[in-house]
């Protein structure tokens, strides 16, 4: 099921509409935002996906992570804790 979300990458100047699917992985969602923001932000850092204040497991699906449409998620620099590209 289609899942429009508002994505914010740390270091970027704006929020973006990211069209996701509830069966795709958190890692895939992160890749979409990273690509969309790459024009303005150096995407070579390790990043965490943060949703509702929680750092998500990159291998979980958006449905498992309980994403709802038109909510905010963030891609924040990882300081050595979890996901790497």
């Amino acid at each position: 099921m289609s899942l429009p979300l508002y994505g914010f990458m740390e270091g970027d100047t704006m929020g973006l509409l990211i069209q996701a699917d509830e069966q795709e992985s958190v890692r895939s969602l992160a890749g979409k935002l990273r690509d969309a923001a790459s024009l303005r932000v150096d995407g070579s850092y390790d990043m965490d996906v943060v949703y509702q204040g929680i750092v998500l497991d990159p291998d979980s699906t958006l449905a498992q992570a309980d994403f709802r449409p038109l909510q905010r998620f963030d891609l924040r620099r990882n300081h050595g804790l979890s996901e790497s590209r």
Partner: protein
Amino acid sequence: MLNREDWLPLARKLDWEFSYTTEQEVYPEVISGHPWLPHSNWQNWEEAFKTSYREYVQNQHEKDMAVYAVRDAVGRLENVQSLATPWINGLKIHAAALPLAEFTGTIGNLRGARFGRDSAWRAMACFGALDEFRHTQIPLLLMHELVRWNPQFDWAHKFYHTNNWFAIAARHLFDELTLGQNAIEFHIATNVILETGFTNLQFVGLASLAHEAGDYLFEKMVTSIQTDEARHAQIGHSVLAMVMKHDPEYAQYLVDKWFWRNWHMFSILTGVSMDYLTAADQRSGSFKEFMDEWIVDQFFRTLDEFGLKKPWYWDIFLDELEVYHHMIYASAYTYRSTLWFDFVMPSPNDREWLRQKYPKYWDDMEAVWASIGERWKSAEPGPNKEGSTLGTALPAFCELCQLPLCAGTPRNNAANVLSHEGRDYIFCSLPCRWIFLREPERYADHKGLVKRILAEEAPGDFAVLLKDYFQLTPETSGKDVYAGDYDWLSKGPLDATTRRGF
């Protein structure tokens, strides 16, 4: 014939008692505004500048003749063509945003001319309506000549008739501020906040930069307009004094709400023009310095004059003053094809100047421009070069101000989601969220661009969106004025001194 001193009091005070209807029916609160008070409360209403129709026509005629004289002397096409290209694009922003917004001011003033609560107020609002009509006609007249040379100037009339994202935001502001507003809120929001405050940025600050840029026609146009604004803006001060006396909490709300709404729009219109589209050696100060001098000081005087408090969001505003229009400009630069004017990338020298003027968050902005510069450097020459430096994902927009979600800082965007009566809304900032929550019945049903697309009321395909919904063509859509051909791009980031166009 009566002399002026005898005629004026007779003509401007023409109230009478109603015999076959009631005052509430003639001046209903929904359109006259809150607080509703019997006319006995308003009968001593005084305007600071008193004028008769005869004097008004004479003065306006002389001002129009002065504008035409400047146009004939320095307003020819070759004069405009000789200006710096970035400045010409700042002119395109104002050419689009100004004229029909002024026309909505005609409508707002006419509402005051009918539903204002004292005859002197109504008489002044009549002159205000004539003023705003003049402010519509002058820029349309002056820009018309330029359309043959550059079709982007056609947006002087076209802009508000499109669904371009910036037009949606501007309409959202002016529909509420002027077109659909009751007389009391219109005069406070427009006269006190917009015209006593923010248009000073245009009519004084930007006029001085126009002089430095050699754009004497723009300078003359806006200073001529400002002389009208200074007169009719006085209406709002007398209205605000009455509202403050009878409902100070509401007066505070109107001032807080409209300062914020005007701030976001003018930080783009004026901030971008001053800090990015004016050549560095022609800038007499930064946008922030103009804001401090012409808005913040003036606003504090207004607060003091009426016994109002600083808005609750003042610290947020001061932080936005450091970075908001920079985030907007960098974002819009990477989506320039969605707009009707061209952009310039700030050179290393420009960025150093901006760092000195805006030190708090400039490191983060520098990283963004460095990244954009890297994209230009790696772009393959050819017809797709420009396209490879443009964003492709749809930007998200605030559901109050309708502007991109560019508030906060690059490290910590301030956007926030609100669930309200079963629907989710996103706002760029806490003040936009607060304004929504004060009057959700006014705002809740308005669909922003994202929700129009999701509801299939606007095209989801980006190219179709630009062409059919934003009404842009390959000729009119925004580009980099130098197509990325900056000498300094091939050099080190901060030791380069070669600049194009500055």
